[in-house]
């Protein structure tokens, strides 16, 4: 029997995980920034059940990034948080995540190719993907967007304002009214918020 060879992941895979960690951080903050800047993302987020905690990660567990939607506020919690995810998207390996993270492939691709697992409500995952498409439209140049986005990127503010907005980690959107709850059969009813008004905030 051959002796056990001690082979590590190697520098290339380590570098990919490092890059992935950075991009995850940007995507987390970018989603929060877009919730402030872009009506479409705001509308999506307002349909999420209160207490939603979404984590993107690469198996076996890191890097990762988490965002939380609670009490009308969307917050980027970064990579170090104990918050328990209600939706966990986990790429099966760093190689499965990398092309989508550096803008070489659409974020839909890993889902369509069995490259990612999703723990939680698949309807919420669909909403997240729609948000990420919009976020990518702000983060990446259009030459890249043409390759990775299903439709041409539409922006409600310029790239620059979006980049500046990445400095913030939370967005106060207000508590959704009952009317804005999703009518999807699969969507979780957002209970207990019917008396609150659906005010939109824009605090950085």
């Amino acid at each position, binding site marked *: 029997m051959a002796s056990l060879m001690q082979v590590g992941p190697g520098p290339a895979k380590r570098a990919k995980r490092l890059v992935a960690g950075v991009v995850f951080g940007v995507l987390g903050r970018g989603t929060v920034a877009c919730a402030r800047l872009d009506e479409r993302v705001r509308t999506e987020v307002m349909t999420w059940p209160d207490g939603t905690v979404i984590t993107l990660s690469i198996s076996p567990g890191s890097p990762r990034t988490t965002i939380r939607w609670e009490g009308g506020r969307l917050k980027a919690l970064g990579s170090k948080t104990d918050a328990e995810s209600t939706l*966990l998207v986990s790429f099966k390996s760093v190689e499965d995540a990398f092309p989508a993270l550096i803008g070489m492939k659409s974020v*839909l691709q890993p*889902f*369509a*190719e*069995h*490259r*990612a*697992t*999703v*723990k*939680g*409500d*698949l*309807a919420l*995952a*669909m*909403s997240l*993907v*729609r948000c990420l498409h919009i976020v990518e439209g702000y983060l990446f140049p259009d030459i890249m967007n043409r390759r990775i986005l*299903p*439709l041409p990127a539409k922006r409600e503010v310029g790239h620059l304002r979006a980049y500046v907005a990445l400095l913030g980690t939370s967005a106060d959107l207000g508590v959704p009214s009952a009317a804005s709850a*999703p*009518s*999807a*059969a*699969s*969507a*979780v*009813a957002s209970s207990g918020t019917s008396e609150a008004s659906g005010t939109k905030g824009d605090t950085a």
Partner: protein
Amino acid sequence: MIPSYYEFSNRAKVLSGEAAIDHIPFELKVMECARPIIVTNKQLIELGLLKVVLRALAEGGVQVGAIYDDVPVDSSVAVVNDLAAVYRDQGCDAILAVGGGSVLDTAKGANIVLTTGSEDLNEQMGNEIIVARAMVPFIAVPTTAGTGSEVTGAAVIKDIERHTKMGFVSYALVPDVAVLDPRMTVGLPPRLTASTGMDALTHAVEAFSCRQANPLSDAYARAAIDLVREYLPLVLEDGRNASARLAMANAALLAGVSFSNSMVGIVHAMGHSCGGQCSVAHGDAMGILLPHGMEFNVDHAGPRYAELLLHLAGPEVYASTPAADRAAAAIETVRAMLQFTHERAGMPTKLSEVGVTLEQLPGIATAAMNDGSMTFNPRYAEESDVLQILKAAL
């Protein structure tokens, strides 16, 4: 066409043909099981279908642990947990599900509960997250030829308290044995035969043209469509034609293997929400929406539809149709099939015929956008696109 990456699994052992059900005792023995729980519903018992299974088990010396016949039309968490409790109380060691989609989904849900020991099904909800060395041994006997559930890794279960539909997708959910016995489907009324047949056809067409189509799932889809083309007219002509029934059961199974791996697209996304919002029967929605979904996709999936013409219409039509016209001809063939089932069995051809109103369409479109099947559609659709397709199908 070969995708940059794909995965494929078909682990179910298939027993197909005359007296297939009589092989269940042997299969149980091979899996070292002696006390199966039978999952079914009262209607199937009344139709006498269960008796065929029970006689086979008795003859093979199998002691049935329990018969669970309380499965409703829509599977729910309460029923799944109840079934799991009966299984444990009666000391069962295998699940034998005899029925249509909801029976098989309930059995899959109970299998998740029993295998993972999870008290809350919510924890297991999602895509490819079930972790288990081995599931409870599971034999599926479909009583319709459509869902393909006997070979798929998907289940949908209602959480009535939380008003949600929970989706579970995992290769772990695929039954160990799928039993296709014509005795189970010869009594299926023409209307249901047509509706479930169109569901099977839709599985094959969508699997073949969706983003994850691959050489293995393609082979199953092509074979499925060939059988539907040849045998759907025959079973609608004479429901007692056992070999035609068996062929349609095979078509549904083949299409099931295909879409369990390469998934379905916009037609199913819209069909699921028509079911959820307006209680439209799944197969009816499939028949009505398939040509419309294909129209929408044709600019992106044209070459794939063109290939399907060979299977939808047969070699003569394929060979005599100029290459540039084949995709459109494929869509026309599907339309003609729907029209045929309409004339022969009263299949609806428009959403308005199944009670859907114009006012309901926006809600259906929103729900369709949140359906996981959208991910795999060859052409990206926005909510306004979905609304337009639904209007055209009204």
